[in-house]
């Protein structure tokens, strides 16, 4: 028998029983609704931690200004000409870079234990990943918007017009959505959020710089060109550039779409498997 004296607190057990009794079991959430709910969570996180948008708004602005004014004259003879060449590239580079946040988000969730809570729920298991990607898409869109606004302010004009730009951004989103699966794998595999950053940087820096993003490949040594020509970022950049320059190359666009489909087909099942067995 315990006759322990306790501080007078409101009795919790009675109210808990009452709250439990009222809990009816609703029909299970379907895959679309659970994915959208996780997407809503991503939006809420942006609302509560707006600092996380700092990267996707400030970096694009910095990159656009720095590359145009620091290297523009040297590469193209004038900053104006360089801007016309480089802006689609900077747009590509910016959005591709931001994809790594997908891995970072999932890794932080694992770290904090939220991941296991979500995995213990009776929902379609991939919906956490899909929802996160929906939230990321918003980031990609925002970053694209920032690059374009800054570009236009300092004199960029897209020969492809509004439609060309929109199509280019959509193409970027498709590619980045597929690339995000790769970062999900990294996020699920690597031990800490910092390690995710490190790994992603190691891959993304060479991938985005050794491409046609900042300079025409013709000026590079042959062995480097060989890599640049097969670099998916080059292919993506050229397709986007074509659309924005009013010289759309259906071949480039098709390659990017096929590439995105292949990347998704390869990495999505691996990511989902890791997610299930983690």
């Amino acid at each position, binding site marked *: 028998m315990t006759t322990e004296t306790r501080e007078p607190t409101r009795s919790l057990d009675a109210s808990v029983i009452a709250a439990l009794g009222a*809990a009816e079991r609703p029909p299970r959430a379907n895959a679309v609704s659970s994915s959208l709910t996780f997407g809503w969570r991503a939006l809420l996180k942006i609302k509560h931690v707006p600092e996380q948008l700092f990267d996707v708004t400030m970096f694009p602005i910095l990159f656009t200004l720095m590359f145009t004014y620091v290297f523009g004259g040297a590469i193209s003879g004038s900053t104006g000409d360089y801007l016309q060449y480089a802006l689609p590239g900077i747009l590509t580079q910016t959005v591709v870079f931001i994809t790594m946040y997908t891995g970072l988000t999932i890794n932080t969730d694992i770290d904090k234990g939220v991941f296991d*809570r979500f995995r213990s729920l*009776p929902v379609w298991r991939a919906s956490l990943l899909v929802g996160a990607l929906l939230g990321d898409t918003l980031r990609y869109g925002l970053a694209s918007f920032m690059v374009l606004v800054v570009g236009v302010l300092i004199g960029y004009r897209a020969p492809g017009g509004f439609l060309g730009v929109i199509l280019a951004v959509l193409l970027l989103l498709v590619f980045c959505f597929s690339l995000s699966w790769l970062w999900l794998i990294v996020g699920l595999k690597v031990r800490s959020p910092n390690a995710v950053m490190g790994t992603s940087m190691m891959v993304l820096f060479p991938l985005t710089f050794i491409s046609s993003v900042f300079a025409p490949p013709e000026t590079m040594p042959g062995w480097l060109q060989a890599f640049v020509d097969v670099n998916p970022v080059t292919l993506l950049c050229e397709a986007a550039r074509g659309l924005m320059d009013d010289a759309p190359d259906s071949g480039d666009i098709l390659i990017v779409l096929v590439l995105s489909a292949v990347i998704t087909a390869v990495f999505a099942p691996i990511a989902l498997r890791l997610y299930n067995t983690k």
Partner: protein
Amino acid sequence: MDLAIETHGLVKTFGDNRAVDGVDLAIRAGGVYGVLGPNGAGKTTTIKMLATLLVPDGGTATVLGHDVVREAPDVRARVAMTGQFASLDEDLTGLENLVLLARLYGYGKAAAKERGMQLLEAFDLAESAKKQVKAYSGGMRRRIDIAGSIVVRPDLMFLDEPTTGLDPRSRNQVWEIVRGLVGAGTTILLTTQYLEEADQLADRIAVIDHGRVIAEGTSGELKASVGSGAVRVRVADPGDREEVARLLAETLAAEPVLEPDGTTVTLRVDDPTAVAGALQRVGDRGLRVNEYSLGQPSLDEVFLALTGRPAEESATETQDQEVPA
């Protein structure tokens, strides 16, 4: 017999470390079942397998009649978990977290919000509904974690070390909640490193060490397995202790233990009624006793008897070996 959990030879290895090394459990539905063991004993890994978060490397487990590997979705639909590894989103507010979970459980928008508020009120958290969870105190945090686990009433709930790091008042609140849940018909599997907690809450207890169940039974049975009780006698003059110990040992037919304080002697006794006579003999010899007590062995003593070392000591020894997430 209606079993909520049944496992046979459950194994999980991480590299060379057999974190769970052949666990057999048969846990009846209803009430609280305690899994007791030091850090790194394999408690959390066992729970994670039962909650379908980890796939076992060997053995079988059924939860509420469903195989945890083949019928994982059926298990997930009926169990809930909370504790150190299944927490909430710290960036979101308490209400947002509950609404999020309610939506994922299938509630509509308005119903989810209503359910969220209802739970916050039940757990005395309504005032902090709009605060980010990272601003919650330890006790509030544990309450919202549990609230998140009962958005839909679970048939079975895993509580992993629910009171670790809480102050006594918050701990009591968590205990009240646990009793409330049990009262409402939920089976609870509770892991703890605190012997007192298992003693207070659990109907039956499994003691786990190095990934194996080393003892199982009610708290009373476990205590009985190390003798029905212990008598502690404290002498007034340290010089008398040897003599008192000898007398008591003779009368009670038990091994005396001389405690490090220099004045206390402890003996396990199987027949408590013999103690009075033994103390009488000590008094008759003119040896003065300041204090004596006869008590049931604590679970600490049970743990010592089972593993050959105290629970606290082994807990600190293996502190760094907590299972990987």
